[in-house]
């Protein structure tokens, strides 16, 4: 196992967010993290790369306890791909990707650093953009650059937060396809928080349904993408179909939509109280 999450609990001052999460991800495997807004997907990602400190539980990358590594060493083991980058002072694509070498560089950029960056740029088909301003790129290209930066960290674990949320249809497929093949090729373990269940099913080796801070169900997409799971996690009636072994869902209607907050629709309450995911 590349990544082991054991009994992780996290509380914000007012409310518990993660209540005993345990998951394992093998090298070469993509784990899709799905669940309604406020279920704790982003919080779990932040606990894994220690932006947040869990109150209980351990997270192991290989044999190393994430809680005991220095920030710099941790940044060599876990790469993080954010949803988007803040706009700001312009930097070139090469410079943005080069930042992935920050955990290795003290001052000067070594030939090896340049080599790694160039390799990653080629891998993602970004060479021709290398001197362009990052902010001038399209959403899809930008997302690839952010993935490239995480890969330049040469991590063992790759975390992705909604990598497709701003992308058009074609780029969604392209980016997720790239992620999956690179993860396989490099033997990394990837955890990807993602809203789109059909994309999640198509591009993940395992799906974990997160619901109110707990793992509701986890397993291969075909096993866990069921009507019952969709109903109890999202409070949505859905049809499940299948295309050459890959399940896909057609959402039909929210259960007990409104106005009564009856027990039949608990997950709507969960989505109301979320701040932002």
């Amino acid at each position: 196992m590349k990544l082991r999450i054991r009994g992780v609990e996290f509380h914000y001052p007012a409310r518990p967010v993660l209540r005993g999460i345990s998951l394992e991800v093998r090298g070469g495997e993509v784990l899709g993290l799905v669940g309604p807004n406020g279920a704790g997907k982003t919080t779990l990602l932040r606990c894994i790369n220690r932006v947040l400190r869990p109150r209980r539980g351990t997270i192991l990358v290989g044999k190393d306890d994430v809680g005991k590594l220095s920030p710099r060493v941790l940044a060599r083991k876990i790469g993080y791909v954010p949803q988007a980058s803040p706009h700001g002072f312009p930097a070139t694509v090469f410079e943005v990707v080069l930042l992935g070498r920050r955990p290795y560089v003290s001052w000067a950029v070594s030939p090896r650093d340049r080599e790694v960056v160039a390799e990653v740029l080629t891998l993602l088909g970004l060479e021709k953009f290398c001197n362009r301003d990052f902010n001038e790129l399209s959403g899809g290209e930008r997302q690839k650059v952010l993935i490239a930066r995480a890969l330049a960290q040469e991590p063992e674990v790759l975390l992705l937060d909604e990598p497709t949320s701003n992308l058009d249809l074609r780029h969604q497929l392209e980016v997720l396809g790239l992620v999956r093949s690179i993860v396989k090729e490099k033997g990394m373990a990837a955890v990807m928080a993602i809203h789109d269940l059909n994309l999640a099913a198509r591009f993940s080796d395992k799906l974990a349904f997160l619901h109110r801070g707990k793992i509701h169900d986890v397993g291969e997409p075909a096993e866990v993408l069921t009507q019952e799971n969709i109903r109890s996690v999202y409070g949505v009636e859905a049809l499940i179909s299948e295309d050459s072994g890959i399940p896909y869902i057609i959402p039909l209607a929210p259960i007990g939509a409104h106005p009564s907050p009856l027990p039949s629709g608990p997950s709507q309450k969960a989505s109301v109280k979320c701040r932002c995911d």
Partner: protein
Amino acid sequence: MAGTLRPRGVPLEGLPPAEAYRAAAARKALFLFLALGAVGGMALVATAVGGARLGIGEVARALGARLLPFLELSVPRSDLAIVWHLRLPRIALGILAGFGLGLAGAAMQGALRNPLVSPFTLGVSAGATLGASLAIVAGFGLVGAGRYVVMGNAFLFAMGACLIILAVGKLRGVSPESFILVGIALTYLFGAATSVLQYLAEEGDLARVVHWMFGSLAGASREAVLTVAGVIGMAFPFLLKASWDLNALAQGDEVARALGVNPGRVRMAVMALSSLIAATITCFTGLIGFVGLVAPHIARLLLGTDHRYLLPGAGLLGAGLLLAADTVGRTLFSPLVIPVGIVISVVGAPFFLALLLRRRRAIWR
């Protein structure tokens, strides 16, 4: 680098990415060396112009007489006095102040991810002004005696403003917005207090306060030069060492963390050091605005946003700008001297606008 130091005929596009980056980096380093040389050259020219006309040769001899005593050059005493006591301290302070303000501005803009930030939008200048006004108008001083009261007050109040900002940052979370908002609030508060003092002041005192606020290098002295040099010499290596951290901060706090950087700590340290530089300079010169805001932007247009090049670049451009402005101010209507704080805005603003219009590259989006 898009639009950055790309000589025509040597397109970076043709090179493989790693080579293109290397070439661009080499160009930036070369640019810094040339800028350093240019500031040195300007200093020599600036020493030679002024009320008493000395040729560059005479200036060089006067410099040589002290620096290289074994040459046993014979130089008129008056030349020595003009060069060593009048002009050199002023020029040295101009270079140092410009360097420090440009450097501090670039570091603060990076740490707070905001293009409008400068030492003078974050309460440092308002604090210094209040301190100086208190000393001049009310005769109130925290430290020192005689002419040092104004300086001491200006410095302490400026650092006080900085400490308040840092303390609030510590208490309320160190987001860029909280720093900036507290800085603005302090600026208003101190500004109001200064206005009250000005309202109550006698005419002579009022004139002194206003003069202090113009910002000038007339108070240059050996101790001013040494103090400013000492503070910059202490802070510059630390800021430079934070270059990668500042680069990472530009990508957002969360990404910075994922890259092993502690955003809060970096921000606090950089803000403290930059404010210290700005406060030290301001207490000797009064308010010299604009450089700290604009030198970093010019440097960014020319060198890009990697702080390893940007920080020294902003410093050197600030030094050049301030020295040029003071030399113009000293000589244009000689013997009347226009305070450098005024000249720098008059000369700098159109220069900056021209650069903005000429460049394709955006400084902020």
